[in-house]
């Protein structure tokens, strides 16, 4: 879903840019136009491809070829074959069709990949439940709003059903959107047999061989399970199992306190479980800006039924059997000495994800994976064992390990399609936002403060930090959710945004103003003049930009002519 959104946004970039910054009255008319275009493209997604054709009537070059998935090339079966129909592959396919390429997508499992079936999507369903449970259970919060609620309860089957329904709904949306555009969905496991040649087929059937001018590998990843851990799918589980919510243990250990672990801790504690985190690094929530993780710990961990062990590895986990609980051996990360043994009802392994690249036939084209990841350059072109680029072969998403996020994969796919259709494009990964959907949410884009300081020192510029609190935001106060912080790391000399980190109500939705600004190269001295509706949470960012002290003056005319990300 959101990939469609992001691409239609991308196509309107020049307009947006102009409309946003121009101060003239023409501005309004432009906005009107844009709304129209946008509204129709929203329609298209849910209905047929024919409507889309008419939308695209504006651009003659494309319209001719859009409806029927391009004209077949002379020497190849397809212009573009994508191996893997996850969010990355889907985003690439949609953009490829728009660009007039005849496109096929190979999927050995279900359309939608991890995100839709075993990741972001079903977990959002569970988190929606946990958010409401949390609210209903917070007597203090309810009382403050003047509400009275008698004891909140839940039906596990119902919750699990909601997650499952959501996944299948999104999956069919995704499938339909590709079918409607005429993308060929080839079922089977794809293997590269040579340059520009892919074999696919189901087990027990004869393989088909198809050729394409360009190939994109988008095979994604699977949950990473460190050795010594025995996953039985019942009491020792990965996110794949956890999302089915087959049972809610009284006490669950979560190995790893990154996004996945954190989100599940939110779900499990809301449903009444107690949680023990096991984190190999010295502090919880590594990878987040330290200040944000400190605050997040104060809000998301300490007051909840959660305890934690940091600086330890779970070296051995045995599932519950023979009347014994799940047993977890903890080993000190530094001294490698046995430290403790935990006995819990269940363990969730959330130690990250490993690329799913086995059996891709990379050996046929002399590509050696690194810890399973397919090596690529900044344009997602695959690099072979000798360090040379493999022509016409690209790899996007989790399989290349650059940034393991669904929307990053989609953006990379779009970037590749841009390149194969003749426009050079490098994705600026620093403009890709990330979010963790706890209650409240955490989101970020760009560099963390320590990263920015390091960079500043190396390159010899100064950085400053601005912060605003949700406590000062009217809408947040109205919701009685004043807990939160937004933080901006920037260059005071030229107003460049280096990073934005938000912890608070709807942080995941708020980050885009910052990520778009980074993507478009908008500077603080310009964006601070953008107007925000009052009272909205977006004013948190408004305040943030306004509180920054930038020496450079605001741009006089059209501020940025060329987007930085392009």
């Amino acid at each position: 879903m959101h990939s469609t959104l992001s691409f239609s946004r991308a196509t309107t970039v020049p307009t947006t840019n102009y409309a946003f910054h121009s101060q003239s009255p023409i501005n309004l008319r432009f906005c009107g136009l844009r709304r129209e275009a946008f509204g129709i493209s929203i329609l298209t997604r849910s209905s047929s491809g024919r409507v889309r054709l008419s939308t695209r009537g504006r651009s003659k070059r494309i319209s001719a070829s859009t409806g029927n998935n391009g004209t077949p090339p002379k020497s190849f079966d397809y212009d573009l074959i994508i191996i893997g129909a996850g969010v990355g592959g889907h985003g690439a396919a949609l953009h490829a069709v728009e660009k007039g390429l005849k496109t096929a997508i190979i999927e050995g499992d279900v359309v939608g990949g991890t995100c839709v079936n075993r990741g972001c999507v079903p977990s959002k369903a569970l988190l929606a439940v946990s958010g409401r449970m949390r609210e209903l259970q917070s007597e203090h919060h309810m009382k403050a709003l003047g509400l009275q609620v008698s004891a909140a309860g839940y039906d596990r089957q119902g919750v699990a059903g909601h997650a499952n329904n959501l996944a299948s709904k999104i999956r069919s949306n995704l499938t339909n959107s590709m079918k409607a555009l005429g993308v060929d969905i080839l079922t089977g496991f794809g293997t590269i047999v040579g340059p520009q040649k892919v074999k696919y087929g189901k087990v027990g059937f004869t393989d088909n061989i198809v050729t394409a001018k360009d190939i994109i590998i988008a095979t994604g990843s699977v949950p990473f399970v460190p050795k010594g851990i025995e996953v039985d799918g019942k009491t020792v589980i990965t996110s794949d199992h956890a999302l089915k919510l087959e049972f809610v243990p009284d006490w669950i250990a979560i190995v790893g306190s990154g996004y996945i672990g954190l989100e599940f801790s939110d779900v499990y504690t809301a449903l009444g479980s107690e949680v023990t985190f096991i984190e190999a690094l010295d502090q919880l929530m590594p990878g987040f800006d330290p200040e944000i993780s400190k605050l997040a710990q104060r809000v998301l961990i300490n007051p909840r039924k959660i305890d934690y062990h940091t600086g330890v590895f779970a070296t051995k986990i045995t599932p519950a059997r023979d009347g014994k609980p799940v047993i977890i051996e903890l080993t000190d990360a530094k001294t490698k000495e046995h430290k403790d043994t935990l006995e819990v009802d269940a363990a969730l392994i959330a130690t990250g994800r490993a690329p799913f690249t086995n059996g891709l036939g990379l050996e046929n084209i002399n590509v050696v994976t690194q810890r399973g990841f397919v090596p690529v350059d900044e344009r997602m072109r695959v690099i072979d064992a000798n360090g040379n680029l493999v022509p016409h072969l690209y790899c996007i998403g989790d399989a290349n390990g650059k940034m393991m996020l669904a929307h990053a994969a989609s953006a990379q796919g779009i970037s590749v399609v841009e390149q194969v259709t003749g426009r050079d494009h490098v994705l600026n990964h620093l403009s890709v936002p990330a979010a963790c959907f706890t209650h409240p949410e955490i989101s970020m884009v760009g560099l963390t403060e320590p990263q920015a300081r390091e960079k500043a020192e190396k390159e010899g510029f100064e950085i400053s930090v601005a912060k605003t609190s949700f406590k000062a935001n009217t809408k947040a106060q109205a919701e009685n959710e004043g807990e939160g912080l937004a933080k901006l790391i920037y260059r005071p000399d030229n107003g460049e945004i280096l990073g934005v980190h938000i912890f608070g109500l709807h942080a995941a939705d708020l980050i885009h103003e910052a990520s778009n600004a980074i993507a478009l190269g908008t500077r603080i001295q310009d964006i601070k003049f953008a107007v925000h509706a009052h009272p909205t949470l977006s004013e948190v960012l408004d305040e943030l930009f306004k509180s920054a002290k930038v020496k450079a003056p605001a741009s006089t005319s059209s501020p940025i002519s060329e987007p930085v990300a392009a």
Partner: protein
Amino acid sequence: MASPFLSNTIISFSSSLSSSSSLPRLAPSIPFSAIRSKSTPRRILTVRSKIREIFMPALSSTMTEGKIVSWVKSEGDVLSKGESVVVVESDKADMDVETFYDGILAAIVVGEGETAPVGAAIGILAETEDEIAEAKAKAASKSGASTPSAPPPAPTPAAASTPAPPKSTPAPAAPTVAEGPRKTVATPYAKKLAKQHKVDIESVVGTGPYGRITPEDIEAAAGLSPSKKNVGLAVVVETKPAAPAKAPAASAAPSSLPPPVPGSTVVPFTTMQSAVSKNMVESLSVPTFRVGYPVTTDALDALYEKVKPKGVTMTALLAKAAAMALAQHPVVNSSCKDGKSFTYNSNINIAVAVAINGGLITPVLQDADKLDLYLLSQKWKELVEKARAKQLQPQEYNSGTFTLSNLGMFGVDRFDAILPPGQGAIMAVGASKPTVVADADGFFSVKNKMLVNVTADHRIIYGADLAAFLQTFSKIVENAESLTL
């Protein structure tokens, strides 16, 4: 991205409203120092070197534990004397608590949303940055064990002797399964509760799956060995000495309750309701008796009509009358703290029961005998407003020496009140109704009469005392003009 489509709307909105500002805090502020000077043996801050502990203050005499609503300051913040540091919810109100030392908030021991018993350290204040590390270490040890009693610990390097970490005691007391040195397993929440309630987790026998210690086990353990520390702090008024022993008995009982009727809903008590419940159960330990008395109110009613335009309420009139009667019968204004003596109160403070949304509170009219009727009415109006806004200061609801409860306005003709712990007597006032009376000469007439029923602690107040008091009260009401003097 949405804004461009909505430009029109945006413009109109933004023109009407300016940017947001933070809400002013309404809760009243109590400096530590104020509390300290008020109630005799209460100790709020312990001074040890330059690292100070911030204790959970006792915001009322009935408060045994408090909940941290929010920390106004966070760890590492520099505090200056008089600043609000933390907001605490007592059984009666939310209060800002201020520091009366300059320093740096080095560590928060009890987080937001958590509760801690009165007197427990909730935060650590360091004087300089250099001491933060030391303070943090202390905070860590603090969470392990409990030493909130005992006045300022001996200046020996006590910090080193952190009360025996659990590991070192192999807990022979826990006769769980006798299969070797089995380690204690406690769930995360159980550990948190143990820390909060200062329960030594090694001494708890786990009843959960695989013999693990569950939150319920800790609660049971905390209930069965009720707050030993609180006894050390036991303060001024009421309840503490005998009462806590009662609570566990009550908490142990529910096991035999019948299962709830299908379709019923369970709504947990609010903090205020819990306090009421606790007080009600505690009241059972006091031997009480009741004496009723009919009072003719024609004079009072006439007076009321006269002074009503001046803002005088019936409550003020009754409080004044009771106070004047109490002045002549000091024993009814006394209380029995220990079952061995009378405590005569020097002031006559009339607590008046008020129903407020979802609860009951008793704002106190202090020195009701000395204030004139108009001042008293004024005072009462303020108190009621404060009570509704949950802003009563502790001394405004816990300093009563005698309670007045009036249900007359609902048409109730008589009822009997439960004596609140710590007081000698409570008066229940019914409605005043026209009644046919016969005088000594056999003449009938119609007079307004109300029934007044007093419940008293028979350890100190005897039947004759109460009868005499009621007679005086009745005379005062029947000669209502004296109330305005």
